[in-house]
């Protein structure tokens, strides 16, 4: 059996090398690896893709320089360590090659470039880093960490080279469908881990730790390209589930038969923490980190169940509680995150590991929420429809009845009271406004009336009698204006101009 296994592995090993050189010059020899292969590949690719990437690189280069200055001190420190020498030399060569190319490109785009990049600094501008400065910082950080991790390994340099070449090649595949991208990454994981297994003579822990770092490095750099790609309808699904969860806001702990008792402070504390963790998942870039968030969330749920039920949580308790947490949290971009993890996570973790179990449960929770109907909540379909359409809510009657027994519902009833009060205030304000408007229109009517009276008076005393009756006319017109001036509120009204014009 072991004979068969080892021979298989050798076969795969050869395939591996072939896969490496497919894009390059096809060298096999161990010593010949140094840069040659990837160099050939880069030149090849450069020629084809130059037009596409020129712009990106120029931008990246400019950003790079800004970052460089910020990190320069740190790097000088790192350089002084003797262990870095082989790596930094190797990187130096790379950087020289790259910077010479990039500089020529840069000249076209940025006439006033400042200092050329410092030698020996491990900065590889990747097209993806041009998209945002933040992602640039993150991926550089990941690169540095990855290099530091690989330094003590004897094949570290090669692993790094392979990963970088692969990551860069992925950027040009962005037009491919998400499933194909996933296939590429998964194949890469598998080939690499098989090779590592031969190398480490089956120390699976060691292989796993390297694979973790590989995943971290690659996915940090690729995140922008492959998370919720435009080629998929992930975003649409995100919105759908978000809307769905929002529509299900009325689902109570009793309907789901969740065995947690939120009256206990420790339990409600755990519930809050679980919600925070599942929301936090979206902020992570590496699939493994996302999984860690789910695992932390699950542990908090277990704690809540254990404190409530005084026994170890079984799946019968766990799944409903997880569903409840997801409903309460409404985690952002839930479907995108699930798809991303499924596509790009190291498969061994998802298959049998503990993280995989919790992730599977999360998938179940989402599937349940999507298909939820009245029956699954022990409701009649009429009730379900009423609640879904917002015409009724199971909270209100219950809140008043159970307000005395739980602090949560007491707070809720207080909120309701305040809301009622606010509604009352709003109504009263509305009434005041109504009255004010009425008063305003009354005043306008009144002035109009006065105007009309003045006019009619003026008409009844035609201008022929102007001279003898001038005093009486002015007297009659002065009378209403005198009343006017007594009226204090009249100041707010537009001045009755017309009568004055006529009088004048």
């Amino acid at each position, binding site marked *: 059996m*072991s004979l*068969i296994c080892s021979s298989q592995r050798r076969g795969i090993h050869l395939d591996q090398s072939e896969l490496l050189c497919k894009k390059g010059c096809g060298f096999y020899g161990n010593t010949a690896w140094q840069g040659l292969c990837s160099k050939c590949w880069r030149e090849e690719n450069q020629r084809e893709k130059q037009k596409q990437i020129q712009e990106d690189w120029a931008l990246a280069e400019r950003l790079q320089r800004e970052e460089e200055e910020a990190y320069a001190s740190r790097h000088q420190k790192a350089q002084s360590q003797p262990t870095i020498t082989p790596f930094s030399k190797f990187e130096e060569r790379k950087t020289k090659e790259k910077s010479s190319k990039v500089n020529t490109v840069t000249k076209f785009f940025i006439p006033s470039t400042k200092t050329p990049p410092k030698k020996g600094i491990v900065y590889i501008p990747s097209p993806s880093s041009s998209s945002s400065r933040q992602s640039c910082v993150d991926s550089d950080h990941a690169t540095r960490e990855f290099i530091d991790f690989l330094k003590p390994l004897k094949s570290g340099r090669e692993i790094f080279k392979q990963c970088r070449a692969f990551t860069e090649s992925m950027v040009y595949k962005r037009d491919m469908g998400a499933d194909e991208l996933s296939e590429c990454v998964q194949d890469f994981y598998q080939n690499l881990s098989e090779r590592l297994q031969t190398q480490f003579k089956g120390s699976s822990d060691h292989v796993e730790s390297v694979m973790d770092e590989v995943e971290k490095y690659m996915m940090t750099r690729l995140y922008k390209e492959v998370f919720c790609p435009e080629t998929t309808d992930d975003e649409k699904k995100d919105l759908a589930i978000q809307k769905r969860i929002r529509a299900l806001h009325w689902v109570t702990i009793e309907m789901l038969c969740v065995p947690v008792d939120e009256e206990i402070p420790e339990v409600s504390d755990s519930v809050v923490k679980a919600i925070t963790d599942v929301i936090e998942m979206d902020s992570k870039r590496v699939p493994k980190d996302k999984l860690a968030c789910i695992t932390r969330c699950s542990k908090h749920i277990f704690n809540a169940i254990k404190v409530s039920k005084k026994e170890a949580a*079984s799946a019968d308790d*766990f799944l409903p509680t997880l569903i409840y947490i997801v409903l309460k949290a409404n985690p952002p971009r839930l479907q995108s995150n699930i798809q991303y993890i499924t596509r790009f996570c190291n498969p061994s973790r998802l298959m049998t590991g503990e993280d995989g*179990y919790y*992730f599977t449960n999360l998938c179940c929770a989402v*599937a*349940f929420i999507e298909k939820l109907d009245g029956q699954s909540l022990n409701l009649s379909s009429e009730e379900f429809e009423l609640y879904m359409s917002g015409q009724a809510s199971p909270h209100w009657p219950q809140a008043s009845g159970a307000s005395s027994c739980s602090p949560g519902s007491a707070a809720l009833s207080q909120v309701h009271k305040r809301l009622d009060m606010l509604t009352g205030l709003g109504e009263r304000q509305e009434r005041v406004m109504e009255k004010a408007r009425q008063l305003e229109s009354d005043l306008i009517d009144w002035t109009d009336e006065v105007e009309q009276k003045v006019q009619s008076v003026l008409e009844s005393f035609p201008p022929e009698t102007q001279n003898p009756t001038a005093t009486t006319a002015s007297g009659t017109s002065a009378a209403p204006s005198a009343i006017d001036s007594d009226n204090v509120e009249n100041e707010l009204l537009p001045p009755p101009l017309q009568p004055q014009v006529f009088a004048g």
Partner: protein
Amino acid sequence: MAAGGAGGNSGKTYSFKVVLLGEGCVGKTSLVLRYCENKFNDKHITTLQASFLTKKLNITGKRVNLAIWDTAGQERFHALGPIYYRDSNGAVLVYDITDEDSFQKVKNWVKELRKMLGNEICLCIVGNKIDLDKDRHVSVEEAESYAESVGAKHYHTSAKLNKGIEELFLDLCKRMMETAQAEERLKGNGASQSASSRRGVQIVDDEPQATPAGGCCSSG
């Protein structure tokens, strides 16, 4: 499947995923807690959870890592089954010997599993709570003949008395190892493990029937 570190002569480490299916209250959790932690209704609970448990075994010199996945047994979660048992190497279907209904549920599960995963999954049908034999509602003959008819093994256990559990899992492991080894032999040319087998968990579409078997361990 059967992934894991491969050694030179010491043999490889097998990793198996086993799902635990069965109605609520049949004692799935007690069974697995008894097996992994040797506990039953322990007053001093130190275990945080009993839904995902692992056990390391050494069977005839081969290392085996067993991951036991508990599933939610309530009827309302029945449709989620395929998400759980995808890529699993074995399934333990538990019923309560005092509850005829729970045996009926097991039959449903068996039908579904065979349909979705074919014969690559090792099935164990387990009648639990034999300490309550006087209230037995599922006859031994019926259960055993049914198990045989669907190519499953039947076991009688009691988590309370710690009976039959060790044997159940040991037997299951041996069978899963045989399946894994047979499959390795079939994969003559050592082509890389089929891509489909690695793909982890995916959200399943509406009906369980609509999803094809995960292609787990495609036999040549």
